């Protein structure tokens, strides 16, 4: 972490309460929660700031980023007061809780420090780069009775809860398999570029896109194991991968398959196949689940009875924020807590540990001939090795 300096003044309405006051229940109760956002990147601009600023349950009292120009831009765009800071350590005395939206590699070091001082943390996914780091975060939260929530926003989609209900009610009969695939050419461009290196991102498409699917699989089926994992990383981060899973549901084995790509489009859906038919949720299908009965040509769109039809799409990041606030105020567990998020990171680690190379004949076939066009005898072509486990920065 670079040395950071404060560039702005304190918030005029700040109280003098510090970490000690908060630990004894400063934020608990029905008042607004003073919240800070650490990391002013694209997700903060597009999702967290709008959610926080339009919420009556929180007051934004700090916004922190190492880039002064980025802070100026965000202050101007959202009409923020003098709450901009460049040193996350200065956030502590101004907030009850923070949203941690830093590059993945900084989640653990910054999160542990804040949790240790009694600051509640809503951390963007993935919780950290390794299971060990996740455990450090959970331990820090437990030690100070702070809330550690993790930003798996897809858990707040009604379709996710409905799928869980349908599985638990054995709507499909005996489950036979599950599969998911998600692929888009390129996409999300983190401003800091942390996504280009394994050391700062923790991995490639499996972390960026796959972590949501891993989290949902664990939520739906409990403990799952990785059977095999193939990917196209060559020492950097993978852009394509395929993973096969095994789970046990109702005492019976269940197999699953996940395909992810950052170079081409895929069907972009999550599907569960049972004896009576298939449940499917497509990309962007937040409110309903599609049911395709076996042997039938019809499709049914299922929604929860409690969900009013035609309601406007809610701000899911704000639902996530309010779940975090509720946990802070009541001491209840957030919808996705540190322990749950640790399981998806552990699964990611397992994938990388057993990774084998994806076959890419178009990549390899001509290399020897092309090497001859170099200025001197080429060194031996770099052999592919399984990616090293991500380590803390």
């Amino acid at each position, binding site marked *: 972490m670079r040395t950071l300096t404060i560039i702005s003044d304190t918030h005029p309405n700040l109280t003098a309460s510090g970490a000690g006051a908060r630990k004894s229940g400063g934020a608990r109760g029905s008042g607004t929660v003073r919240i800070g956002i650490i990391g002013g990147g694209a997700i903060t601009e597009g999702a967290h700031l709008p959610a926080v600023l339009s919420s009556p349950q929180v007051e934004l009292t700090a916004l922190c980023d190492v880039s002064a120009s980025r802070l100026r831009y965000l202050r101007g765009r959202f009409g923020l007061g003098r709450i901009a800071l460049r040193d996350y350590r200065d956030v502590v005395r101004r907030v009850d809780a923070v949203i941690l939206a830093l590059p993945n590699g900084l989640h653990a070091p910054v999160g542990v420090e804040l949790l240790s001082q009694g600051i509640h943390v809503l951390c963007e996914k993935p919780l950290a780069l390794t299971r060990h780091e996740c455990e450090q975060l959970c331990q820090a939260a437990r030690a100070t009775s702070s809330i550690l929530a993790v930003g798996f926003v897809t858990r707040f989609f009604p379709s996710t809860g409905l799928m869980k209900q349908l599985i638990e009610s054995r709507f499909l009969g005996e489950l036979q398999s599950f599969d998911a695939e998600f*692929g888009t*050419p*390129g*996409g*999300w*461009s*983190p401003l800091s*570029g942390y*996504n*280009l*290196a*394994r050391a700062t991102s923790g991995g*490639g*498409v499996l972390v960026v896109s796959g972590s949501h699917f891993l989290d949902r699989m664990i939520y739906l089926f409990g403990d799952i194991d990785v059977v095999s994992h193939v990917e*196209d*990383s*060559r*020492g*950097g*981060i*993978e*852009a394509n991968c395929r993973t096969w899973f095994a789970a046990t549901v109702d005492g019976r084995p269940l197999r699953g398959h996940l395909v992810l790509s*950052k*170079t*081409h*489009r*895929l*069907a*972009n859906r999550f599907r569960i196949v049972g004896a009576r038919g298939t449940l499917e949720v497509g990309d962007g299908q937040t409110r309903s689940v599609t049911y395709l009965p076996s042997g039938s040509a019809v499709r049914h769109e299922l929604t929860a009875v409690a969900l009013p039809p035609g309601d406007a799409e809610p701000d899911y990041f704000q639902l996530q924020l309010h779940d975090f606030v509720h946990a802070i105020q009541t001491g209840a567990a957030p919808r996705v807590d540190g322990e749950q998020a640790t399981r998806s990171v552990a699964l990611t680690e397992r994938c990388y540990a057993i990774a084998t190379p994806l076959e*890419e*004949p*178009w*990549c*390899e*076939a*001509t*290399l020897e*001939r*092309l*090497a*001859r*066009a*170099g*200025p*001197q005898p*080429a*060194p*031996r*072509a*770099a052999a592919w090795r399984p990616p090293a486990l991500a380590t803390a920065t």
Partner: protein
Amino acid sequence: MTPQRPPRVLVTGATGFIGGRLCEVMALTGVFEPRPFVHSTGSAWRIARFPLDFASGDLCDGGSVDRAMVGCDAVVHLARGNRAVMRRGLENLLRAAVRHRVSRFVHISSIAVYGSQPPAASVSEAAPAKRSDSRYGNAKLEQEQRVLRYRRRHGLNVVILRPPNVWGPFGAFSVELVNAIRSHSAAIVDGGRNPCNLVYVDNLVEAIFLALWRPEAPGQVFFVTDREPVSWKRCITDHAALVEVDVPHVAEAQLVAPARERLWRDSLRALPEVITDVEFRRVITRIPLARRAMAFLSDWLPSLPGETEQAVRGWLRGRERVRRNGSSEGGYRADHPCIAAQRRAVAHSSDKARRLLGYTAPVSYDEGMRLTAAWLREARILDGLPLQKPEHQPAADANPPDEIENAKGPMIGVVPPPDE
């Protein structure tokens, strides 16, 4: 160049089709050490598979170009973008290359410098290129002139490569051809006898490698093509076989000439469909002036006498045209990229590159086709699943594109249709 380590090469346009493959081959063979110059990290997935020394920046920002050049032995310039990127971006790059005394500057130009109908003399590079009907070609020609100026004035060791249709895995050529075949807008014209003018991406990579170090290269312009000439008939038939579609044969005389655009009439005729689009109305009515104009229009038309209203509606709709077999308005349009490209008879030759650089074009058409087909399958493009958005080459690595990129048009045929 230091013999102890592979020469370090700054690659602009590194996130694109050619740049991505170039960095990949450099990293895997170890022949050169690529430093990809990246503008948007979200499009760098293909090359981020390697632990490379990325330089993040904007070609129009001289400071970021200068920083990226530190420690580089050579440059391969593949990026393109809007007018500023094509001019100021290239100028920044050339200036930094001179300042940092790089040993070689390889500029990837295009056959498009000869316009949409290359002259018969353009069999070889000796044919002079001049301003043409192609906006993209003109921009590339202007770039070539700028690059050669740096050779004359500063002694920079520049090399210019002019590839025709670059094809291969991750490229738009085969994706667009498959799309055109599947949508029945492709046809084989006059027996498809004209040459396709292809260069498989790995063959272009070989030429770039050679241009980076061969002493004969500086100051020269080279065509880079595949070893054997391939006819459009063969190329289209091979792609059609991948999607199991029969492509019809048509005579040039049967092609439907593109309708001449009439600015006012065509704009007014397009208007009703646009303004009744729900999504468009939702957005445009945020503008108070537009809201009032829309309200006026929706009140005005029904207020006309019945026959007048019908006549206005009829004029706005124009004549009903029925599409046959998915093709354009009852025939195959002469200006469809896949059709227009078949009307070029000249076969560009890379003899000069063979002679001076030792260029071998090591990948045959058949092997290239096998590898491309394998990738098209892997990328689900042959499955009928949602198609991948083709990645246009050279990479748009700098600013968002504007009129130059738009003018470039589809990748098939390289040379875009004439400016409007």
